[in-house]
């Protein structure tokens, strides 16, 4: 779960990391009021949980309250990467001498936390890694030992921070603490600025809460941002189903993340276009009825492809659910099945008896048939 900048900065502040003075505004008038309260030149920043806000025109400087009002008026209501801007962060403008980068994240290679720091900040960390690799320090941490001030100092040695090693090391330790206490997947300060008066301040912050920790971080999760969802996606979410709407015409119901992604890939490989991603593997394998309703309620769907390959998810249970849904809904579009794995003998017998259908022998055959059926269905319309 992503957090907007102001919510992420609140976590930094709680951890003792300096951030610019500022406040959230939800209207142009409020932005003007915050700017005059601050009494200094400000920046007005769109609050949406995505990067590239600057490039999209979502961040503007304003020298006085009047121009803060104008900037706010221009930014509010903008659409940035699918998010409508409804809130702004108005904060004092920093006089930047240098920009650094600091982050803590989970690292698959070392199977634990990784602390990162670069004396080149303000751009994507991938860019930093590519252009100035010698300035990027990476320190894998044993989570049971934690990250000490001494380790932070060792990490920063030789970067030439001009006497700022002390405060930077303290910020890294505080950042690690914030990552740990808040069940973060990622916490990133970019840039961490050295101001002309010498202070280090976090000018922007990204915080991602581990989705698997939401149930034990409920209060924190309330401050997070919901993903922008279509109506069908929101319905899926309410049902506990991962449904992602796409722009094709073949409705997909699969089980398991890998198989369902592959179903989409192979549809595309053979020249078709999937209408959605929806998988009912894992604990969701008993939810075939509401899942199928969701797929069929997308008006672009011209053919339904059901692709089950059961491991944990039993194909007999999923197929029974799919058949219940089909009998109740009686969809006008053709339905194609591919069924293999746990419980497939029972599932195939059920399909033959209740629907008079024999599933395709291979997934590729089923997909090619589905593409042809979708084309036939749109041609006959």
């Amino acid at each position, binding site marked *: 779960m992503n957090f907007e900048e102001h919510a992420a900065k609140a976590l930094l502040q709680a951890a003792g990391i300096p951030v610019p003075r500022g406040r959230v505004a939800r209207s142009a008038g409020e932005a003007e009021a915050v700017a005059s309260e601050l009494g200094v030149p400000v920046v007005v920043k769109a609050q949406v949980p995505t990067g590239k806000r600057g490039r999209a025109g979502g961040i503007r400087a304003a020298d006085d309250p009047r121009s803060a009002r104008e900037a706010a008026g221009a930014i509010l209501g903008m659409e940035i990467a699918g998010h409508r801007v409804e809130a702004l962060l108005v904060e004092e403008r920093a006089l930047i001498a240098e920009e650094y980068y600091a982050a803590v994240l989970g690292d698959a290679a070392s199977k634990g936390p990784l602390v990162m720091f670069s004396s080149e900040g303000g751009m994507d960390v991938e860019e930093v890694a590519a252009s100035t690799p010698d300035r990027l320090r990476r320190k894998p941490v044993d*989570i049971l030992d934690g990250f000490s001030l001494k380790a932070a100092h060792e990490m920063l040695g030789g970067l030439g921070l001009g006497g700022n090693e002390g405060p930077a090391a303290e910020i890294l330790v505080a950042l690690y603490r914030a990552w740990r206490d808040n069940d973060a997947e990622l916490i990133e300060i970019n840039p961490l600025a050295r101001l002309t008066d010498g202070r280090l301040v976090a000018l922007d912050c990204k915080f991602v809460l*581990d*989705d698997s*920790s939401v149930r034990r971080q409920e209060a924190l999760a309330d401050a997070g941002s919901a993903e922008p969802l279509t109506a069908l996606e929101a319905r899926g979410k309410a049902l506990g189903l991962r449904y992602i709407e796409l722009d094709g015409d073949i409705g997909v119901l699969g089980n398991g993340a*890998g198989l369902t992604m592959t179903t989409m890939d192979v549809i595309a490989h053979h020249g078709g276009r999937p209408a959605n991603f929806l998988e009912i593997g*894992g604990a969701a394998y008993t939810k075939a009825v509401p899942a199928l309703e969701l797929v069929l309620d997308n008006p672009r769907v011209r053919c339904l492809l059901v692709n089950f390959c059961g491991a944990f998810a039993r194909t007999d249970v999923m197929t029974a659910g799919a058949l219940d849904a089909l009998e109740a809904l009686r969809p006008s579009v053709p339905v194609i099945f591919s069924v293999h794995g746990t419980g497939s003998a029972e599932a195939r017998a059920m399909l033959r008896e209740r629907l008079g259908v024999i599933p395709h022998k*291979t997934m590729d055959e089923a997909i090619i048939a589905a593409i042809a059926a979708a084309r036939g269905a749109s041609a006959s319309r």
Partner: protein
Amino acid sequence: MIVRGADRVLVQGITGKQGTYWTERMQAYGTRIVAGVNPKKAGTEHCGVPVFATAGDAMSEAGFDVSVLFVPPLGVKAAAQDAIEAGCRRLVILTEHVPVQDVMELLSMAGANGAVVVGPNTAGLVTPGECFVGFMPAFEGDIFRPGRVGVVSRSGSLGTLACLNLVQAGFGQSAFIGIGGDPIVGTTTRDALQVLDADERTDAVVVIGEIGGTMEEDAADYARDMSKPVVAFIAGRVSPPGKKMGHAGAIVTGDRGTYASKHAALEAAGVEVLDTPSGVARALRAALG
């Protein structure tokens, strides 16, 4: 990790609905289940084996080599710690949605004690003709058959499909290693590749990866120097960026975790990457000559 028929297996969470269903299937296939754990049902018997309060009790009373965890997400860390402290050196964690920092803690504990972890969020391991642990359809003869191809997969469902394709093409498997769909797992693609490289019963390896993270790139680095042929399929080529595709680990963020990066790294290492899973068997046949 490869499990063998002689390995004694403990089931933590044996009395639950899934624990029971899959314990019965493992037993029917030949897996040597010796005991189960459920603190509330200690002293009883379930699926014909004794149930203990802790893995520690199970170790001293029954003894076991491998523990498989059917435990809810927030209980996984404590259950794994119990098993590791009991002296267990091989753990298979099936649970999905375990908090990532709990995973890191238990992996650190495992590492300090010389224990190997597969998972979390894995469908398990199969050694066809001998045994399986987890929830894989090992017992379906059209999917698993003893043979000489090792399979590594992040996904259970897609791994199952790949195994089906292999059997349809006349191959069998030496071992199936499901590594799990989480971003941080105990056994990475590279780790599993290393195990199969060293396994005398394995002649070639199929890697089933997916978008997200850099495990496939890392595995490519190892595959480059392997003498056994490796072929791969990577799921998620047309998945939209920025969305978690069912697995917590399957997400493209910016330039990270893309299909293109994995494809390029594997091909550069001499690993053929197929456009559909059904192409895997053909590529294997060509590679094996």
